């Protein structure tokens, strides 16, 4: 790993950039969902309240941390770091500056699947470790919901891989030069969005953290630092999943090539990427504001009886189209 890569990994298209994006996304979500509900949304901190998520993070981080007595101390101390690491590593595999992502591996799409599974596993572990009555029920729901949306999520991620005949995100993004995959396999895109809504526990699938029934869901017992990092990770995985959707279905940083010189074009690629990223992000929280929360049994029935066969059919169509 030469020093440039390390700088890229930690600074620009890497960690700091995405953490900043996570805060911006959280702010955007709160502001527009407020506006759509006739409210004002955060106003005080910074211009138009843009620093509100940052303020929340530092306020929470400075708060005293209460560790429940019978909880598993070890997991509660190290768990959030691992939970944060999952999306943090994932973003390194996404091509932003050009069609060359920071870390590359011919099979990194499979690694993405592992990351999605790993972050849900960590959430479940944290929930169990905090040993609260409400969090144990919430973890039960989390796992049930995970088993229902995992299959369609994988199928919808594999469809573009079949079309591009490559298992690396970079390869898939590059293969979309002529036609974005959202046009060829729109259903896969829709299924990916619905499944990522369930992964991010956003309405209508925010059942594990349903504040009205089981207080804070699996996050009930967290406080102080743990809660700050868990909340940050949730916004970070929100950005990560939107970025994944952009790379797999909207051609990653692809767009008209304007200037010959290398760095300027890299800048344009980033701009294309950002525009698409915000479009997908906006789409997700429009849905989040428009829908009510469904019950856990209804969610599983919806996924198994409707969405999984749909994504299977889409995969079949993709295979047929791909090999013609």
């Amino acid at each position: 790993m030469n020093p440039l890569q390390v700088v890229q990994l930690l600074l620009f298209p890497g960690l700091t950039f995405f953490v900043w994006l996570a805060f911006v996304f959280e702010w955007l979500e709160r502001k527009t969902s407020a506006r759509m509900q006739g409210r004002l949304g955060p106003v005080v901190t910074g211009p138009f309240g843009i620093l509100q998520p940052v303020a929340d993070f530092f306020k929470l981080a400075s708060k005293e941390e209460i560790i429940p007595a019978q909880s598993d101390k070890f997991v509660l101390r190290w768990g959030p770091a691992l939970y944060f690491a999952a999306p943090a590593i994932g973003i390194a595999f996404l091509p932003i500056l050009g069609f060359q992502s920071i870390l590359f591996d011919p099979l990194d799409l499979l690694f993405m699947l592992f990351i999605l599974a790993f972050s849900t596993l960590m959430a479940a572990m944290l929930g169990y470790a905090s040993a609260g009555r409400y969090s144990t029920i919430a973890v039960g729901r989390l796992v049930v919901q995970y088993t229902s949306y995992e299959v369609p999520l994988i199928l919808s991620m594999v469809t573009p891989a079949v079309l591009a005949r490559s298992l690396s995100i970079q390869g898939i993004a590059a293969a979309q030069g002529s036609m974005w995959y959202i046009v060829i396999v729109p259903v896969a895109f829709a299924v990916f969005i619905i499944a990522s809504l369930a992964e991010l526990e956003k309405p209508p699938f925010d059942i594990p953290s349903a504040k009205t029934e089981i207080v804070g869901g699996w996050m009930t017992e967290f406080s102080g630092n743990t809660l700050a990092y868990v909340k940050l990770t949730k916004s970070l995985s929100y950005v990560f999943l939107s970025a994944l959707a952009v790379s797999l279905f909207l051609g990653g940083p692809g767009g008209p090539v304007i200037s010959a010189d290398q760095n300027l074009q890299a800048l344009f690629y980033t701009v294309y990427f950002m525009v698409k990223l915000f479009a997908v992000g906006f789409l997700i929280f429009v849905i989040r504001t428009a829908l009510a929360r469904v019950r856990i049994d209804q969610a599983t029935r919806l996924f198994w009886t409707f969405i999984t066969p749909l994504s299977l059919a889409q995969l079949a169509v993709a295979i047929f189209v791909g090999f013609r």
Partner: protein
Amino acid sequence: MSEDLQHGQRKELSAGLIQYSVESAMPFGPIHPSLKEPEYFKLILEGERIVQVIPRIGYVHRGIERAAQERTWVKNIYLFERICGICSFAHSLGYTHAVEALTPFEVPKRAKYIRVIVAELERIHSHLLWLGLLGHWAGFDTLFMWIWKDREHILDLEEAITGNRVHKSYSTFGGVRMDLPDGIAAKLKTEMKYIEKRVDYYENLVGAEETLTVRTKGVGRISQETARRLSPVGPLLRCTGIARDVRVEDPYAAYDEIAPRVQTSNDGDIASLLTLRLNEIRESCWMVSEAAERLPTGPYKVSIPRAVPRGESMFHVEAPRGELFYFVKSGGGSAPERVKIRTSTMANLLTATEMLKGCTLADVPVVLTGMDPCFGCMDRISVLDVGQSKEWSVRGEELRTYGIEYYRKRLS
């Protein structure tokens, strides 16, 4: 109540209350984000399905009936309207009517019309509040925000007429304390048209939005037979198809001239409660504009001497949640000898526990809100447990501090 239950033992009790103990009895309350007021339900679960619900109430108990015996008749108006934050005018209406029934005086016609206007405004604002809360508990916060945005119109109207958004302190013995501000009739009509337009929009939104109907259709169903047995009141009774409304059966104030058409729906679940309350809002909008139209001229108040003649009187009014009953016994003195208040939530509680049976845990808040509980209403008799009980309630917050201040000053 279930402490001494053995595991798996099932005992048939009267009134369909079956004592049943299973390994996981889940406490729901007394302080829980979904409950705006501390009530405590011990849910006996099998997995996520509820088998038995045991209510334990009394957490916002302020001993109002005992306190009423130590206050003069006029001071009690302000005490009783603070029983409930949402149906506060219904309480002061019930109490003033009960006392007026003991005196030979006749309330002027204009005052009766004004009372109908303010009572129906309060019904609209209570139903809108309930509708928004139901959206919130079903996870649909957008609906909650919109509906409470529209509810502001009604609260502004109430503030313009009575001076206060919630505790109106407007009805007194012999009529109302202030006349309607001039030019209010036109404003009332335009606002009512706006509310009717909004209610039409919400009706097709709530009826069609799949993620919401799925949470309310067939959830918490009560049959007409259970309703007859447990005799709930108000919308909870009317949603099973039994058309009973105090405003029609025993018209008070000006309800004999502006009679509401009693709304019913017939499958007794939360969805039918939704449409029922929406229609009731439309009905109240019609009644307010009708009353504003036919408002007679004349005095708005007749003065009644302080001491109330000896005697007993019973009066019931149709509060937003159902029949609210006042019994007043006067010994001829400056304070009542006994005041008995039976609020609508007290009558609906048994039916609510019946509705909860068979639902899953996720339905509890939706079903509980379906009953539109107002526990501040129900808990108003007991000893001074103000200091000891850990009340936490947003709506009752002001009542709580008032209660504590009163007792600390009164007894220190």
